[in-house]
């Protein structure tokens, strides 16, 4: 006979506390076995109490303290002062981004140190455009990367504390004089910033934001004595990197072209007069649209008047305008090479420093290029990199050395960020292609083309479906190249994707950029292809280099886009019999809309193949935010 089992403890139906609650401090010990039900809410707090007694006392069980990784990473690096400057020069071409975590750690520390120049873009201009004579604070801030390392351990210790509370108290410690000096610096910078601001709807993400938020952070109310203030300022600048850059990284809303006053101001500064298109779609009033015909003649006639524009830059601008260069990689490389030429021919005027003058010149070239065609996101990132390199030039270099350094930096950027990145992407992507696959691609993405050609060289047996769309019909170029290499291709129109998708096994897409909410920003029609692939349960892989990632977010394709020439909609290439719309482009009720880009929601994307590896769309903000310092060398 079974011995009587011990009676189970009666689960007293205690009322469970629901929601967040803090454990009273006297209940730190686990104590006697609790009731099964009531122990549930109590034991987690008791364990929390036990494990991090110093930090977690006030936390409820469901709240996990945010990781302090930024400070913990920064602190060991701050103790290595002499190593930080040579580091940007050291990564060789052989260093790939997928390995060598140590270098990324170092790089991040370097970047964090140097990011005491917040935002890196216009604040440099702010610092540089102000006459450096009497403003100690500006010069202190400018030299901070050196200064802070001389401070060494003391500052490092500061870093580990709670950032937010400290920065707030530190802000209050700057004196009035320092504040005013900084404000004047920003005001002077704003004038130059406005010219760029009006012209860079897509690229001024961090630019004016640094000026504006710099202003908001700077005016603190109280004052202290000077010695404490100076030390505090350095401390403040020191812990500015994680805190302020997080704030600065909020991209300023780009210039909205339906704001009449700003458009007027921008027009006054325009290098080339452009007449706005007359028949504009209401929904897109916030985007610029100009009459294409007049744009070209204006630019051509102005050539001899545009003294500041270097001929190489002018040539690239015209190539953008006429559509000879398409595709974000090609445009970015062309622009950087034009800038290389311009830097080679540049000579510093007397009484000006190279850094400031060259940055201003680059700014004026940029305005010209934007008038030819708005910048793509990848070009914006490249410009940020370039301006940052100019700003970080050591003052001891001669002009020749500085120019050579810059040109080699540009070469290295192109090499590592675009060419090598593409090789890494191809290496990853071919592992996803197996024999018997039917791969679909849309348009003519350069990365995907390389993947397909390489897979074909490796001897894999697959078929390609090239989907094309109006008005550019870029797929035909890709088709030519693939068939020329002997790949079996099917060509179809975007309307027929529902028909063809049932036989497709994988979809490879290219991207102009990937935004921080995982949205893929690419040629119009990509969203349709991804949507239909998702409906047919076909995996969608996006091949995109990491330098194209951006911290902006976008929900749909209308917030930010580019409007192309509407007349190409009415003319159908090769089908002259279809001319319904001839002559009706000027009717008041009928408008033509030629969108260039669209935004694909992240739930349609299975995987993004970058030079950092194969990541899901949710990893993009991680790469942008945490790896940004090192991956754009800012």
């Amino acid at each position, binding site marked *: 006979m079974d011995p009587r089992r011990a009676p189970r403890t009666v689960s007293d139906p205690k009322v469970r506390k629901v929601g967040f609650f803090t454990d009273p401090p006297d209940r730190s010990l686990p104590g006697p076995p609790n009731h099964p039900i009531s122990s549930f809410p109590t034991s987690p707090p008791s364990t929390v109490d036990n494990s991090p007694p110093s930090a977690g006392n006030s936390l409820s069980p469901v709240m996990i303290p945010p990781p302090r990784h930024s400070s913990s990473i920064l602190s060991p690096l701050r103790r290595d002062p002499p190593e930080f400057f040579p580091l940007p020069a050291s990564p060789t071409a052989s260093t790939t981004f997928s390995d060598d975590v140590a270098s990324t750690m170092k790089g991040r520390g370097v970047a964090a140190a140097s990011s005491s120049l917040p935002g890196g873009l216009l604040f440099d201009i702010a610092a540089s455009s102000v006459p450096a004579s009497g403003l100690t604070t500006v010069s202190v801030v400018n030299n901070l990367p050196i200064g802070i390392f001389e401070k060494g351990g003391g500052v490092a210790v500061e870093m580990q504390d709670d950032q937010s509370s400290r920065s707030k108290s530190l802000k209050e410690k700057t004196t009035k004089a320092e504040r005013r000096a900084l404000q004047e610096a920003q005001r002077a910078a704003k004038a130059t910033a406005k010219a760029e601001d009006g012209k860079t709807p897509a690229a001024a993400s961090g630019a004016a934001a640094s000026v504006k938020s710099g202003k908001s952070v700077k005016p603190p109310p109280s004052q202290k004595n000077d010695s404490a203030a100076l030390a505090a300022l350095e401390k403040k600048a020191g812990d500015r990197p994680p805190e302020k850059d997080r704030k600065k990284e909020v991209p300023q809303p780009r210039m909205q072209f339906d704001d009449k006053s700003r458009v007027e101001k921008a027009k006054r500064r325009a290098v080339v007069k452009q007449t706005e298109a007359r028949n504009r*779609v*209401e*929904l897109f009033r916030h985007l610029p649209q100009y009459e294409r015909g007049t744009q070209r003649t204006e630019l051509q006639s102005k050539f001899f008047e545009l003294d500041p524009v270097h001929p190489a830059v002018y040539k690239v601008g015209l190539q953008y305008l006429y559509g000879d260069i398409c595709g974000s990689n090609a445009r970015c490389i062309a622009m950087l090479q034009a800038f290389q030429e311009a830097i080679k021919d540049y000579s510093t005027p007397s009484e000006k420093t190279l850094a400031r003058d060259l940055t201003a010149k680059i700014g004026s070239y940029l305005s010209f290029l934007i008038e030819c065609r708005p910048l793509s996101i990848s070009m914006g990132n490249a410009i940020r990199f370039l301006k940052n390199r100019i700003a970080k030039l050591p003052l001891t270099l001669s002009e020749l050395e500085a120019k050579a350094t810059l040109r080699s930096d540009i070469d290295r950027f192109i090499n590592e960020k675009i060419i090598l990145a593409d090789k890494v992407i191809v290496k990853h992507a071919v592992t996803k292609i197996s024999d018997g696959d039917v791969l679909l691609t849309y348009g003519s993405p350069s990365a995907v083309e390389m993947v397909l050609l390489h897979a074909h060289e490796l001897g894999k047996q697959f078929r390609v479906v090239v989907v*094309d*769309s*109006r*008005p550019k019909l870029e797929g*035909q170029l890709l*088709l*030519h190249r693939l*068939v*020329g290499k*002997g*790949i*079996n*291709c*099917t*060509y*179809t*129109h*975007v*309307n*027929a*994707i*529902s*028909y*063809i998708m*049932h036989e497709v096994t994988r979809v490879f897409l290219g991207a102009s950029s990937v935004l921080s909410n995982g949205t893929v920003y690419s040629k*119009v*029609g990509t*969203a*349709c292809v991804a*949507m*239909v692939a998702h*409906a047919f349960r076909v995996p969608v892989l996006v091949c995109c280099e990491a330098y194209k990632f951006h911290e902006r977010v976008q*929900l*749909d*394709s*209308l917030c930010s*886009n580019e409007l192309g020439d509407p007349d190409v*909609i*009415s003319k*159908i290439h*090769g*089908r002259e019999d*279809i001319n*319904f*719309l001839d002559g*009706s482009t000027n*009717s008041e*009720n*009928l*408008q*033509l*809309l*030629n*969108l260039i880009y*669209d*935004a694909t929601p992240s739930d349609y994307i299975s995987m993004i193949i970058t030079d950092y590896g194969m990541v899901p769309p949710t990893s993009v903000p991680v790469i942008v935010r945490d790896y940004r310092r090192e991956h754009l060398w800012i």
Partner: protein
Amino acid sequence: MTEKLLNRMVSEFKTVAAGPPSRSPSLHAILDRTPDSERAHHSSRDGDSFEGKGKSADRNAESWKLKHDVIRAVNELIEDINSCHEQIAEQSVELIHQNEILLTFGRSRTVREFLCAAKEKRRSFHVFVAEGAPKYQGHALAKDLGARGLQTTVITDSAVFAMISRVNMVVVGVHAVMANGGVIGPVGLNMVALAARKHAVPFVVVAGPHKLCPLYPQNPQVLLNEMRCPSELLQDGEFSDCMGVCNGSGNPLLNVVNPAFDYVPPELVSLFITDIGGYNPSFVHRLIADYYSADDLDLQKRTTS
């Protein structure tokens, strides 16, 4: 389409054929009956004394009457087809309101009338017309609508997903409505329907009753489709070097696919607007019984009698 037209004619034969109640009204029944109509007629007329001479006269009279009736029925059908647009357009004022943005695809006369009727009722709205490659009929529709005073914008088919987030309703005309509620429309319509479903935009199909088809679609993308000429997509001159290239096994390296139609499953369609009112896709199979007889679903069938 002609198959559907013929099928449609059966509905008229129902009323035309003075068939004996024993045989259900259907086209096949009528066609079978015609050669021996004399016999049936004769048998139904018991006691009719017109035997010899009356037979041939009767036969001619009856066949003439039948022809006359058929012609009248076909004329009525043509009338119906022409007038269904008005009845459908009357319902537009219930669906389109002020400051709306509508999207349409390709060209459909029904849609044109639908939109213009709403415009006449002083509703102001904006229409995006997707051009509908490779026929580009959307251009013609946009021109018509613009001429009639509606605010129209022409967009490319690839921009449909980009624009649909701002669209309040999608209105399209189709080629055929299948018995399960799915529709056969111009190529690209499935893409528009999927985008509309993703953004919870109602996808409204306007169709006259002559578009109704009693068939249930089986693999409709292939079986109910037509392939058009590839030169609409690729100009031979630019691709002449690629056209003839073959791989090792003799298959051409370059295939061009140009389907004409697209199938939209019933779960993507929100509403059908017909001349007799608005209906759900799940109701369409009931409408078929009004217009078609069950025997006539297979045109090639020969009844053995």
